[in-house]
């Protein structure tokens, strides 16, 4: 082998604390290295050209680049060596930026460590073999999980692009959080007026299959060929018959159940259609409150239903959908305000969340759009908004900013004044975050036109006294304590990952952060991709987002799916396991442990042997560490390659 080694300065990112020239010089002392140099930016066009030129000039057959993490530029350099005529797998990287120059300042130690990392990369490269991918066909259907605005956008864009789309929604109607909003900032558009048409488009699009009131149960397969089991939860109403007329809701005797669509500040019936514009507009029975289920007798809805759609004996149903790509758009949920005991959320009825306030503002809400406080139905005059409840708060393990609360609070302050002209709003805030088009202007209007009093400081406690809520906090600009006698307190509850998000991530085999938000492939350059091929993200499941951001991501994810499906065949990663048939004793331990069922038993000259199914193998290498005789080896990560790395490190 003729190896070339390229040590990247990365400007001063590496060179600042690593003597790259010394590393290059030391590399020349390693076996089979015939060329070594340092280079300013290996990934830049001149950098890559330099590598290609060296491959040609020096007849290199393998290349090591010591630069940033292979998770960043391995594909870049693989393409470069391929352009120079080498097999793309005759290439290794040493990560001397993230793992060396950026984590230590000791130049001597960093240089020395870099040499070591180059050494193990060379030892691995010496045992690399050229690999070539094989092709497999794909199923050009896409599943979108979650029917909020991001999921709706992704589904519509994919469907308009000619793809068959399966949209799965946990609730009985799509619409998500946006459907609950009264108005949207900064235009103060009616939320349901702009979302409604899109929901209707979903219902009417011939390419979209909607599974509402359904959840993803299990996911098998891999990019191009996923099998998703969808659990259609029992609605106890035959939706093929239900016309959404609402007769059942009128007559249902169980009327005092907390209405989840109204964030539990209003009642609803046990058989219910959550809101008038619901898509699909179908009724669902809640068996935990329905008298027929709880007491065993009632049956009123069955009697009044003009189409005979009520089916009390309905059971959950599993349907399997085969798709080639999946977009996760499961959105967010709200931080539980009762955890902030000093504010009394959950204990005091007049301490509510911003989303509950949206329902109070909404004409389709429990109060018909009149602001009435929950405790006594009185119209509040003084409304206090408290920002960052469950956001930017390390003590609650919620250190991140939820992003959209500042804006919706400004909107709510404006709407409060619109609804109750003699009202006064107070906003306790930490900072105002309004970095969007027309956003900061909007908050200014709340203060200046609508007279909302913004108080910079945290609230220490909220307590009731004589029918008022006393809000005590600090005004850090004035340097004083303030107490406000409020009629209603609205907490800007932070956004957190949707309930069950980690479980879905596990099914999707994607990562999630400690708060349950899904991990993108790269925070800047691959914001809607995940580390699992064929799985994309849209909306707040990746982190808190406002509506335009969510819509943008929905479209972005759709674009990714459309690009993926623009080919008829996909190339499989050739870094898969291969069986040395001479060494295999046919014990089947690899077959038992393979997470992908990618290994099967075959007969070879009368003996049992293992065989890897190329397109199914995902290259985890579990089989290699399971096989005692080392008969099944993961290409590019063989035992001998890892042993060579170990030996190189332990040879002193």
């Amino acid at each position: 082998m003729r190896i070339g080694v390229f040590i990247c300065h990365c400007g001063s990112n590496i060179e600042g604390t690593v003597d790259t020239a010394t590393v290059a010089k030391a590399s020349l002392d390693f076996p089979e290295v015939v060329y070594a140099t340092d280079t300013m930016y290996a990934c830049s066009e001149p950098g890559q050209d330099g590598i290609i030129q060296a491959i040609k000039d020096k007849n290199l057959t393998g290349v090591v680049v010591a630069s940033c993490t292979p998770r960043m530029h391995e594909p870049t350099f693989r393409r470069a060596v391929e352009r120079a005529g080498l097999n793309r797998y005759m290439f290794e990287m040493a990560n001397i930026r993230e793992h060396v120059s950026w984590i230590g300042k000791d130049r001597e130690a960093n240089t020395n460590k870099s040499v070591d990392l180059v050494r193990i990369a060379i030892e691995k490269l010496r045992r690399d073999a050229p690999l070539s991918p094989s092709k497999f066909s794909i199923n050009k259907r896409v599943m979108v999980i979650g029917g909020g605005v991001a999921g709706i956008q992704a589904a519509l864009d994919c469907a308009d692009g000619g793809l068959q789309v399966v949209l799965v929604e946990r609730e009985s109607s799509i619409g998500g959080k946006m459907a609950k909003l009264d108005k949207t900032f900064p235009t103060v558009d009616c939320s349901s007026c702009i979302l409604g048409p899109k929901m209707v488009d979903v219902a009417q699009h011939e390419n979209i299959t909607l599974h509402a009131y359904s959840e993803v149960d299990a996911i098998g397969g891999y990019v191009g060929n996923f099998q998703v089991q969808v659990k259609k939860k029992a609605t106890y109403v035959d939706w093929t018959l239900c016309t959404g007329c609402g007769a059942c809701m009128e007559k249902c005797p169980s009327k005092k159940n907390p209405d989840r669509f109204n964030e539990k500040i209003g009642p609803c019936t046990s058989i219910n259609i959550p809101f008038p514009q619901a898509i699909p507009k179908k009724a669902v029975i809640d068996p935990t409150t329905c008298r027929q289920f709880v007491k065993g007798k009632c049956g009123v809805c069955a009697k009044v239903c003009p189409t005979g759609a009520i089916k009390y004996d309905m059971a959950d149903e599993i349907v399997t959908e085969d798709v080639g790509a999946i977009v996760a758009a499961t959105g967010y949920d709200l931080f539980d305000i009762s955890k902030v005991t000093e504010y009394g959320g959950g204990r005091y009825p007049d301490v509510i969340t911003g989303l509950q306030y949206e329902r109070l503002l909404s004409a389709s809400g429990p109060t018909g759009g009149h602001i009435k406080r929950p405790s006594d139905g009185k119209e509040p005059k003084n409304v206090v908004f408290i920002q960052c409840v469950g956001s930017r708060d390390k003590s609650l393990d919620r250190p991140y900013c939820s992003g959209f609360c500042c804006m919706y609070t400004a909107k709510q302050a404006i709407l409060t004044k619109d609804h109750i002209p003699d009202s006064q709003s107070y906003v306790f805030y930490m900072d105002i975050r309004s970095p969007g088009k027309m956003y900061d202007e909007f908050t200014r209007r709340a203060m200046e036109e609508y007279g909302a009093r913004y108080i910079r400081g945290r609230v220490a406690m909220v307590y009731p006294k004589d029918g008022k809520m006393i809000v005590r906090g600090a005004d850090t600009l004035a340097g004083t304590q303030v107490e406000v006698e409020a009629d209603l307190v609205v907490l800007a509850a932070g956004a957190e990952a949707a309930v069950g998000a980690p479980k879905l991530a596990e099914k999707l085999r994607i990562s999630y952060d400690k708060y349950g938000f899904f991990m993108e492939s790269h925070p800047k350059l691959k914001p809607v991709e995940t580390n699992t091929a064929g799985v994309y993200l849209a909306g707040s499941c990746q982190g808190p987002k406002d509506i335009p951001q969510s819509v943008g991501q929905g479209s972005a994810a759709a674009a990714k799916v459309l690009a993926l499906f623009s080919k008829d065949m996909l190339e499989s990663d050739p870094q898969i396991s291969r069986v040395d048939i001479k060494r295999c004793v046919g014990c089947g331990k690899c077959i038992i442990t393979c997470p992908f069922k990618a290994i099967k038993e075959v007969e070879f000259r009368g003996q049992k042997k293992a065989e890897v199914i190329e397109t199914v193998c995902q290259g985890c290498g579990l089989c290699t560490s399971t096989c005692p005789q080392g008969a099944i080896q993961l290409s590019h990560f063989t035992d001998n390659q890892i042993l060579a790395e170990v030996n190189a490190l332990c040879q002193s």
Partner: protein
Amino acid sequence: MAAVKYIASDKLPDWLKSLAAKSRVLVPVAEGGGVVFRPYAPGCRPVFDSDATAPPKGAVFPACQELFRYEQGKDPEDPGKPTLKLIASTEAEPTVVFGAKPCGARGFLIFDRVYIGKKFPDPYYIAAREATVFVTMACAAANVENTCFCHWVGSGPADGSGSDVLLTPVAGGYTAEAVTDKGAALLEDPALADGAAKADEAAAVKAAAREVLGEAPDIAASPAALLAAFDDADFWRDQSDKCVSCGACTYLCPTCYCFTITDEPKGMSGRRMRSWDACMHFQFTLEASGHNPRPTKAHRLKNRVGHKFSYYPTLHDGLVACCGCGRCIKSCPVSVDIREIVQNAVARAKG
């Protein structure tokens, strides 16, 4: 032959100490549950009354031996052009193997014909062999074990072939007889006294030991008999059924001389090593293609027995490549008995 000398048991440490001053002295010592040859150090207690678990083969033919080292370099003008330096040494440390049984020393007779032959003289072996002196301990009657069969192969409990000095246990000490000139030189040590008076007792000890072994069966027909059985697969299946293909028999055999060569590169340097091979292992004649002409243990056992009792004697003037020490029987986990196989082959040939 020089005169018989005598050394009292309590003088033995003096002699060993004086030998150890000049060379490495390997003596049989108990280690864990076995007896192995280890360098003599004051205070160490050699075990002379039973045969060592492992013979002193490694004293001349180590289990693993570096043939040479190499160091690669690079032409500074053209790093693609490698330079290579080989470092090899056949130098052997002067060694006295003290207290092996006659069978253990006799094994080297079989080695010598292979490694000191005219065709392929082996410098490593020759150097080590020349640097090594064997002071051998003849067996007394009580040392003869059920697995001993040295008398089958032309040897015996007082066989001096392969040795330089032969000691014989007598009351209070040992008589010492020089077998070679190298051996005679060793006996010029003040710890040794004249042993003429003990010569008769020594002869009696030797005779008594030989007596215990009894009559040896005639195995003169074994070379032909084993060849005749060469293609009898069922015969070899039956003989090898219980063999588990381990290397205990061959690695403990004083006469097994097969080796394999491996290279161990490490960065820019490396070593080429010669190590014991075992014909019982699958890898013994495994070819690079994956093909193995001796794929089963039956093939391999046939080779081991055939080599010792047929092919080698045929090539080497009838010398059987076995010293009859019985280690292969005694140490076999399943008690495969080479005597029985040879006799079965002879019996088979007779019909």
